[in-house]
């Protein structure tokens, strides 16, 4: 079971669509109703960041299995302006955009694992994993 879904993110209707796709995939894996909501919320924040800062990018959702563990991996990729100061971007309330500055810290808090790499002028890549408990 290595279902992978790749979704182009260009507008706010794609944010809604990617949430629904993730819910369906996560449900298959056996996540609880509250975990489904946490995943959808994290994804919403990540997809919105793409639209707001990079205008376009993509989200890749994949189911993973590691021994007994099952999980959902969210990959978010864009070729936007990148993040100059990742440490600051991960702080609650810090924003260079019009948001609350909660997007990245929110997404990190809701997932079990969170990796971010970003290069100014080249874009941002995020990999976030949630395991079925």
């Amino acid at each position, binding site marked *: 079971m290595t279902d992978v879904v790749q979704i182009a993110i260009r507008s706010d209707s794609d944010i809604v669509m990617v949430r629904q796709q993730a819910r369906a995939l996560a449900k298959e894996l056996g996540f609880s109703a509250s975990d489904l*909501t946490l995943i959808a919320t994290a994804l919403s*924040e990540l997809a919105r960041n793409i639209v707001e800062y990079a205008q376009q990018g993509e989200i890749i959702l994949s189911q993973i299995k590691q021994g007994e563990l099952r999980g959902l991996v969210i990959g978010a990729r864009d070729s936007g302006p990148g993040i100059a100061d990742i440490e600051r971007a991960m702080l609650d309330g810090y924003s260079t955009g019009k948001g609350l500055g909660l997007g990245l810290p929110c997404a990190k*808090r809701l997932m079990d694992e969170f990796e971010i790499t970003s290069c100014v002028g080249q874009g941002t890549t995020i990999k976030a994993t949630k395991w079925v408990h």
Partner: protein
Amino acid sequence: MKTPILKQGPYLIASLQAEQSDTDLLELQEVLVEQVGRFRSRGVILDVTLLDVMDSFATRTLRNMAQAIRLRGAETIIVGIRPEIAFAMVQLGLDVRLSGVQTTLDLEEALAILDRQRQEGMCRD
């Protein structure tokens, strides 16, 4: 997608949809703030029972909506935050950002609160 808005006496009831996009929410904000004036509404009920997530954008927009509606002379009550959404909001500290906006479990309670506030308002006049 347009958000359905019902007029119920002196109140407006908006039912937010599951597939509500950011643009839809901003549009709803504008329409409600305008309609409160047009219908001289005393209260606005935002029913979020169907909403699939309440992320930072939705939280901020609902708070802004409630504040703008208050400036136009009406009260706003958010109705039907589901258990899993409530947990997610608390985990993210979004509940604090919504403070100052009244929330109730269901429509019945929201209508009762708005009725009571109106009566108290009339007694003071």
